[in-house]
């Protein structure tokens, strides 16, 4: 073993690799089941609840517009809300950071001689850690949200931004109560546990002096704050105490009360799948209600005590105004903390926020929050867990491109942590990227997959033998973190482009063709799974298309997944340069690998001039989308393979089990395969799993192998015993399904293409 490899190995493995993997394994075992059941339930509820809206997309667009406008005008809105709240008789304090906010709140508590503060759930108060600050002054702090109270008793952190205790089972809560309250016969049912908590907390609420809440939204025009709750504890927190402190990030401001409306319709549906939660409180504090005096309780309730209420709005900056000036992080400020991105995320469903989260926030959007509030180091601890599957994108009610924030922050982490002493000269030929020297080797190898694959194809017999050769795999695991339990792709000796040239180009004469199309030879199809490329050519030609398969560079998806933005941008420019003459000639671009199509349509918007991006996005099609379009335009379905002819080498019959690719779903092309299959007479069962768990290179990494397999578990449950032919268009999904089901799936185009 050379000393170079040792040096690279140490740099790649780092001191934290084993710890992180162990932590994930532990959480999978201890909290994974409870988190999975709850988040998948919320996610299914979101589809149902938003599906009942006639104008879901319009509402999302409106919500986005309001947030864009509000953040744009934020300094003015802060000034305005100060005026309106003060006119109402309250005070506004703009805190620079957590310490500043806590100092102010401690002063309020001291002035009111508060012995006990009660709180409703507020992530912003978790962010500033106000409980510890108050407790340091001898103020007892009681969380009144049942989930938060459980965590306070257990001394644990929230695992979810909306349902903080989803990692706790009913049995676990019962045991906790037994232990904390010394109960021989603790409550066990959900009903009994809830009533136990209601009574205990009811007593604590009666004697409280200070009430703290968060705020979901604040209208600058009136000083009205909106609270989205279900239990009624926020209402009690405000009503039962004469001093109300509301803690809210500055980004919670919207211009007017009327602009609350779309958020009220979206937040519950997006988060937990509830059309609306039990209570939407719209308070313009100090509130008008009398303060019930539970000590002198023979006095009339309506005693005029509402006039003595105090209200303090503590607006928190803590990095937010700087985020507003940061083109990448700014979008995070549109977040309404609904938790849709957590619930829609395969990795989050498996491990929850204790692994996929930072100091305060969790799930996909947490990378933006933690990078902006705590810094890159905190974001770096969990940012890997966003695989870029993009299933959170359509789920987000304000249309935040959460995967992009993760990619861009990963890019900053890559650059910030680059160690210039790393010796990677030996790999320069294989990693011709645009990144700084010293970047983590496993990141660079994955990011340069296109070059690696081409090299593998050129040296196929040797490369393939080497790749799955024991000592080489051990080295790969140790040096670049590729899990040895994964099958590595086998490179083809003859690439798709070479095969196409060898056969003499298209079998359909351009003069007789209805259309002309370029089949994009993506890296996986061109060098590894050439058969699906050949099938695409046959299917298109059967429908009268003159096909070309030019030699084109990789799309940039692998480097993008590693946060290597400059490399991906360079790839985008090269791909566009290669395709431009074909676009000029009016040719369509047919894409076999869904992640590449998604890259053309989504991420290239950031890399190419707007006109170029639009041109390419409009001209490119998913292979099955294209076939569907050809049939719709009068193409003859009889030219394709009918179910009676069998579904190919692995099985026969007309019954299919189809897993659409995550990113294909996001760019809304996943359903074309289903429609085409059904048109040809196939019986299709479609998976309802958001992402298979492989997510490009993610599942190959030894840190994440168990997690990746766990994310795929619902697919095994749904398709494990099926007699159906399993179909999946994504290359990495194919590897994952192979591992999960022990049968190699086909690309949809291979099912319907005429036989060779």
């Amino acid at each position, binding site marked *: 073993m050379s000393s170079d490899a040792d040096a690279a190995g140490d740099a790649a493995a780092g001191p934290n690799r084993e710890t992180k993997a162990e932590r994930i394994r532990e959480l999978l075992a201890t909290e994974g089941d409870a988190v999975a059941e709850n988040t998948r339930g919320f996610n299914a509820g979101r589809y149902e609840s938003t599906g*009942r809206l006639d104008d879901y997309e319009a509402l999302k667009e409106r919500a986005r517009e309001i947030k864009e406008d509000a953040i744009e005008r934020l300094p003015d809105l802060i000034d305005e809300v100060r005026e309106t709240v003060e006119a109402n008789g309250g005070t506004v304090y703009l805190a620079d950071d957590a310490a500043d906010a806590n100092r102010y709140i401690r002063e309020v508590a001291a002035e009111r001689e508060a012995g006990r503060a009660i709180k409703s759930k507020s992530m912003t108060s978790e962010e500033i850690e106000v409980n510890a600050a108050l407790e340091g002054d001898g103020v007892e702090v009681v969380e009144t949200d*049942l989930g938060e109270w459980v965590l306070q008793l257990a001394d644990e952190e929230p695992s979810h931004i909306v349902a903080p205790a989803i990692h706790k089972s009913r049995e676990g809560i019962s045991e906790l109560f037994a232990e904390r309250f010394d109960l021989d016969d603790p409550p066990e049912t959900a009903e009994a546990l809830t009533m136990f908590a209601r009574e205990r907390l009811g007593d604590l609420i009666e004697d409280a002096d200070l009430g703290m809440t968060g705020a979901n939204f604040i209208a600058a025009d*009136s000083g009205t704050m909106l609270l989205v*709750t279900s239990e009624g504890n926020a209402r009690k927190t405000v009503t039962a105490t004469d001093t109300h402190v509301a803690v809210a990030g500055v980004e919670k401001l919207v211009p007017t009360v009327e602009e609350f*409306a779309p958020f009220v319709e979206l937040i519950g549906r997006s988060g937990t799948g509830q059309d609306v939660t039990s209570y*939407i409180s719209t308070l313009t504090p100090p509130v008008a209600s009398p303060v019930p005096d*539970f000590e002198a309780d023979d006095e009339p309730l309506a005693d005029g005590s509402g006039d003595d209420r105090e209200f303090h709005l503590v607006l928190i900056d803590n990095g937010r105004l700087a985020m507003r000036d940061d083109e990448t992080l700014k979008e995070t400020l549109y977040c309404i903390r609904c938790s849709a991105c957590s619930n829609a995320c395969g990795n989050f469903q498996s491990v929850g926020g204790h692994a996929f989260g930072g100091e305060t926030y969790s799930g996909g959007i947490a990378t933006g929050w933690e990078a902006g509030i705590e810094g890159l180091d905190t974001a770096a601890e969990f940012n890997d867990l966003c695989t870029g599957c993009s299933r959170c994108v359509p789920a987000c009610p304000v249309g935040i491109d959460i995967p992009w924030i993760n990619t861009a922050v990963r890019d900053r982490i890559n650059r910030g942590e680059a160690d210039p002493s790393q010796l990677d000269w030996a790999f320069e030929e294989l990693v011709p990227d645009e990144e700084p020297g010293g970047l983590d080797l496993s990141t660079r190898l994955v990011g340069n997959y296109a070059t690696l694959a081409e090299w593998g194809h050129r040296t196929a017999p040797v490369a393939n033998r080497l790749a799955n050769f024991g000592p080489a795999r051990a080295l790969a695991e140790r040096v670049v973190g590729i899990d040895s339990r994964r099958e590595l792709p086998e490179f083809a000796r003859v690439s798709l482009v070479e095969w196409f040239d060898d056969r003499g180009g298209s079998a359909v004469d351009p003069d007789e063709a209805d259309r002309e199309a370029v089949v994009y030879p993506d890296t996986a199809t061109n060098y590894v799974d050439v058969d699906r490329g050949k099938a695409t050519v046959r299917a298109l030609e059967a429908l009268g298309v003159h096909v070309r398969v030019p030699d084109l560079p990789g799309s940039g998806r692998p480097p993008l997944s590693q946060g290597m933005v400059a490399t991906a941008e360079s790839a985008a420019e090269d791909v566009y340069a290669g395709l431009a003459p074909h676009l000029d000639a009016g040719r369509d671009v047919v894409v076999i690998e869904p992640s590449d199509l998604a890259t053309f349509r989504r991420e290239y918007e950031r890399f190419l001039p707007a006109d170029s991006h639009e041109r390419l996005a409009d001209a490119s099609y998913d292979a099955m989308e294209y076939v569907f379009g050809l049939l719709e335009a009068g193409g003859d379905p009889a030219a394709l393979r009918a179910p009676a002819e069998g579904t190919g080498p692995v099985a026969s019959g007309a019954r299919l089990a189809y897993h659409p690719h995550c990113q294909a779903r996001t760019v809304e092309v996943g359903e074309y395969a289903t429609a085409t299959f059904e048109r040809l007479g196939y019986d299709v069962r479609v998976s309802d799993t958001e992402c298979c768990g492989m997510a490009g290179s993610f599942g190959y990494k030894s840190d994440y192998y168990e997690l990746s397999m766990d994310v795929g578990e619902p697919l095994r449950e749904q398709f494990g015993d099926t007699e159906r032919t399993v179909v999946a268009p994504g290359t990495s999904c194919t590897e994952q399904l192979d591992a999960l089901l022990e049968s190699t799936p086909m690309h949809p185009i291979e099912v319907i293409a005429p036989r060779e």
Partner: protein
Amino acid sequence: MATADTSTFRGRLDDFGVTVSEGPPAACASLIDDAAGDPAVGVPLGESGPDALEGSAASLPERVATDPTTADLRAAHTGVTAASLGIASYGSVAVEADARGTEPVSLFVDRHVVVLREADLVPDVPDAFAWLGPRARDESTDVVFATGPSATADMGGLVHGAHGPKEVHVVLLRDGDGDSDAPGPADGDGDAPGSTDGTGVDG
């Protein structure tokens, strides 16, 4: 208000497990009497809810204590208040806080009986916030839009009555006194879909 809205509203209340009774204002006291448990506290109609209720034929039954002490509130099974507005598409009622204690009376009890005039139903959420906007700006009003009973799923299953009322009953007052020609449908048959279970989105 259109019959379609009332029908949608009733359907939604049913989704959330909220019972409803309906009648002219003159029947209000007896409808409340049927719905309220014992002991009951309340805020006089008109002082709670819209001004239009004051001086109307609608009133509270005598057994509802209208100037309760805090001890009465703590001991009460039922709290009776009016709502200022209803949102048909969500089955929500807008309960306004006031110095008479509408908010605590609707909150620190096991059952909330809420009186709503059919005339105060609006079709959808934007209508409700168009109503709220000027009131918030000009009168600093505090309103809770309540939909169904208090709920939690934090203890391993959906339970009603986490902190607030376990049950809600709506007394819906039809437009105009004694207008027997326009009875509401017995059951909501609107296009409202089923509700979902789940935990709250506590901000």
